[in-house]
Every structure is written in structure tokens, then in C-alpha cells.
């Protein structure tokens, strides 16, 4: 696979990871806490469920950030590969 093709592949992966990050943050689970407040249900079991949900939401936000970081790195690598490909063309010429 050429450097250019590899760069394109990395960009495609970056796009996919950004899409996944956006999809995670747009998921209904991220707003579920609004529907499950103390006016809806109260008690130790609901407290536990809310705490678990809050923890999961925090983990999902972190996962989305991690995906964006991977995407950023892939794009950075793609740029480096582009530069290498350009320099190879220059040398060949």
C-alpha cells in the first residue's frame, strides 16, 4: 500500500472514530438522568441506578474524548505520510 493510500485509510478511520464519538454523545442514554430524577422514583434502588448511570455517562464522555484523540493522531500521521509522499515525488523528479 502506498503512503498516500495509507494516509487516506487513516483519514477514513479518523472520520469513523469522530462519527462514533458524536453518536455516543448524542445517544439517549446521555439524557436519561433527566427522566429518572427523584420526582420520578425515590429510594435506595433508584439512588443506586442513578449513581451507576452517572458513572456510565462519565465513562462514555471519556470514551468519546479518547476516540477524538485517536482521530486527531490518525490525521496527524496521515499528514506526515503526505509529506513523505510529496518528498518522494520530489526526489524522483
Amino acid at each position, binding site marked *: 500500500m502506498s503512503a498516500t493510500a495509507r494516509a487516506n485509510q487513516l483519514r477514513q478511520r479518523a472520520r469513523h472514530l469522530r462519527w462514533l464519538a458524536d453518536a455516543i454523545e448524542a445517544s439517549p442514554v446521555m439524557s436519561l438522568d433527566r427522566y429518572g430524577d427523584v420526582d420520578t422514583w425515590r429510594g435506595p434502588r433508584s439512588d443506586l441506578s442513578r449513581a451507576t448511570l452517572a458513572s456510565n455517562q462519565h465513562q462514555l464522555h471519556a470514551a468519546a474524548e479518547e476516540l477524538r484523540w485517536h482521530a486527531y493522531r490518525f490525521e496527524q*500521521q496521515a499528514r506526515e505520510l503526505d509529506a513523505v509522499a510529496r518528498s518522494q515525488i520530489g526526489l524522483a523528479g
Partner: protein
Amino acid sequence: MDVGYEPSRVIQLSRRAAEAINSLAGLASTDPAAAEAIRTIRLTRSNLEDHWMPALRDIEGSDAMAHWRSSRLSTFGFGTLRALGNSFPDHLRPGVALAPIPPEVRSDLLRRLDLLERKSVAGTNELGAGVDPVSAPTKAELRALGNDLAHWVARDDRFADELARLSTSNMMIGRLLGAATFPSSFASSVVGHMAEPNGPDTEVDRDRYAESLGTALTSLTDDPGACLDLLMEDGLSVLFALGRWEHLDQKIVTEFMVAGLHEAVEDEPTRLGDGYQVLQHLTVLANGPLDRRISPGVALGFATSMVTYLDTMSLAFGYSSDSSQFTVTDRPRGISAPLGDYADVTGLFGVMLRHEEARAVLGGVTADWATSTLRGSTSEESFTSHLTAAADFTQLLIASGIAEQEQMEKEAAEVEAGKRRVGDFLGFVVDGVLQVKRGPTSVRRAVGYAIDLGTNWIAKTDSEVMPGRPWGLEIHQQIVVTTIAMSIDQRDFFHDEKDRSLTPTQRQEVEADLALIDRTLDPALRETCVNAMISNIEGYVPALEPALNAIDNNTAANDLTR
């Protein structure tokens, strides 16, 4: 205790929670960089399914749903103790009074079970014919029957046993394990009955059978101790089935193996001996009926779980290197587990190393373990001891790779004799590493890093589909790079006969070059970078010259690089 709920809001919450579950189910990715995110998504979904939904269903099903109440329910919140108990693992479940199932209830449940099985078969057939599976049972039907069966399974052992035996012909039973919360002992019994080395030899639909068994296995992963119990049972039938029948969902097999081999021991360290018993069974299978192939799910589960065993296992290899048998011993935990002789152990690791993903994971786990162990050393003596253990273990891994390569070469030779040179090449590059390893003791670390860097590189690279060539050019490059990378940490290598050492600037240049190589994914470009580095490094590190020259001059390597 303030306990209560607002019915209309609970209904809306339940609907939103179901939407959230469906939405999470639709988020998927096969990109390795998304693996952690997918795991988090799965965890969240599992929490909603296992905790939120049962709690909300209990409220919705309660006769007290008519109005807001400052509840008469217990301080545990909503629902009955039974419902609460069913949301816990066995060991946390409140006591359940045993009672035989009334004959008319038994007949009714078996009739409903049969009906749902028939509807499920009809739905599968419709799906196969390309039409909407309108006949398939609904989730509500599955849940309702699952809850009713679970109620009696927890109370009547004979009924539970009857259902477990029925699971090999009625796929619905395994499937219901995913629709309601059953005691782990029942799920174990179902798996025990359903697990067959090559799948069922009856007339049942093998796809539905595999799916049903997969659901049963998944239902057990919340109780790692039960998974370990099943893996260590005397007949080896479950372990053998998981290693042999690749029709099963391999992700589920991996999760089950990790739950039993790793999580169960992490949760309860006194069960390390039980984990070793499973490894003993695996050694027997890997050197017997599974010596040519083990399922990817078992291999990956084994590799991932090694993090739990490397500490004790590596010491056994070190202490018993002069004896014919390897025995893992841990006196405080009362463990004495003979794993077999050197050939047996290399046979075990070798068959696991056939799988690319397992190789990558085993490499990463080994290197992480070696690094953390060495960093945790409190004295020079313990450092040396750990280093020796790390080197002995990584040497064993390499020996396993060579032995397996030879085995695969024999298999490939039956098809195409020309692939033999690949085996020669692998043997050579491993020799290259071992040559460096004969240097100062601390350079032995190179072996561990070679595994790590090599497997990471393989994991990032498109796999080459070629039966006789699981390793190749990438490893060649990696060995060269690793040899250099490790050597720049070793003062001994940076002194030539005139005792000239590497200058700080030269060291920075080498490190920058190595970092560039590690980032370069394109194979051709990477090869250029490696070659450029070799030509530079020989001037800096004279002691490396013989090893690098030998690698360059190897004819098998040249064949591969053409």
C-alpha cells in the same frame, strides 16, 4: 426511608431507557482504536438491561402503580424480595424457600416453552426466506416465560435439572437465560449439557444451537467464579467444546474464558490454584486433540488472562529450567501445579500463538508484566531475579513460536514445499535476538521488548494471509529495530574497543529515528527507514555490527525482501 414513585413518569422513564438500550446496541465499530469505547458502550448497555430495566419492570408490574405513594415497600426500594434477589449473583441472593413445582404449573410452563420454541423456529425460517419474522416471540413473551421459569428453577432442583437436560433439544432454554435472571448453577448446568466438541450430532439447527449456547455462556460471565468452575470440571468437555467448536461466537468464548481464568482469580485470589488446574487441562488438550488448532476465542481468552499467571508461572520456568517438569508452586496459596515438560508447555503456548490476535495480546501482556515487574524491584538482587524470570519466559515464548512454526511448516509442506524457507527465516531472526541476549544480563530485556514491539507492529499492519507465513518481513525489521532500541539503553553496547561512548546528540538522533520508524505504517517506507537506520547505527554501536550483518546476509531474509 423515603421511597416512592410517580407512575406516569416511570412509564416514560422506562420507554426512554429502552430507547437508550436500542441506541447503544446500534453503535458498533471494528476499529481497534474504538475497542475501549465499545467496551464502555457494552458496559453501559448491560447496566441498563440488568439493573434499570428489571427495577422499572418491577414497578410497572406492581399493583401499586395506580398512584404516587410514599411506599409500603421495604427499604430495599421497589419490588419484592424475589425480584430483588434475582438481580443479584447467587452468593448475594436472599434465601429462597424450596418448594416442588405443582404439576399443573409445570405442564403449563413446558407447554409455553414448546410454543415459544416453535414460534422461534418459524421466525427463523421467515428470516431465512427474506420476510419479516412476524411469528418470532416478542421480548415481552420471552421475559415473561423466563421470569416464570426462573422462579421455579430457584425452588425446585428436579425441575431445574429437567430443564437443563431439555436444553439440548429445546434451544429456547438457553435463549431465555438472556431474558431473565436465573441462578448461575442452572446456567452452568445448561452449558454443561449443551457443550459438545463439534456441536450437536442430532438433527437440531446448529446455528440456533450455537446461538443458544452463546447466550447461556454470556449469562454466566457476570459470575466469573461459575465460569471457572465450569472450565475446571474433570471431564474437560466444556473446555474442549470451546476450543474445538468454532461455530460458537468467538467473542463470547473469549469473554467466558477471561471471566473464568482472569476475573474469577482477581475477585478471589485464593482460586489461583483452580486457574492453574484449567491451564493444566489446556496443556493436555493443546498437546493432544487440539494440537493443530484451537479456537481463536480460547486462544485470545488464554492470552488475555496470562496477566494473572505470569508472576507465578515465570518463576516456575526459572526454577525448573534444569528439570524435566515445570511445576508452579505458591506455598502461601497452597498451589502445586505440574504443567508438564518443556515440550508440553511450548506446545500449549505454540498453539495459542497461531492466532494473530492472541500473539499481539500475549506480546503486550508479557512486555507490560516484564516492565512493571522490573520497575517494582526493590533491590539489585530482586531485579536480577525478575529479569531472569522475564528472560526465561520470553525465551519460552520464542521457543514455542519456533516449535509451532516447524509444525505449521510440516503442514504447509504437504501443500507447497517452497514455503519452508519461511521457517528457516524465523529461526534465524530468533537466533539474532538470542545472540544479543548472550550479552550483558540486562540486555535480556531486549527479548521482552522484541515480543512487545513486534506484536504491536503486526497488530497495526494488514495481516498477510498465507498459511505458512504467520511471521515474516515485519518481524525481521522489528528484530533489527528492537535490537537497536534496547541497546541504546545499555552502556556496554555503546563502548567500542577505544571506550568511546555515544554522545547525547547521537543518542537523541537514534531515539528520534526509532520513534519515526514506530510511527511509520507503510511497509515500504518503513523498510527504507530501517535500512537507513542500520547504516547509521553501525558507526555508533560497534557491538551490534555482527548481529546486524548476519541479519542482512541471511538468504532467507533476502528472499522475503525481494
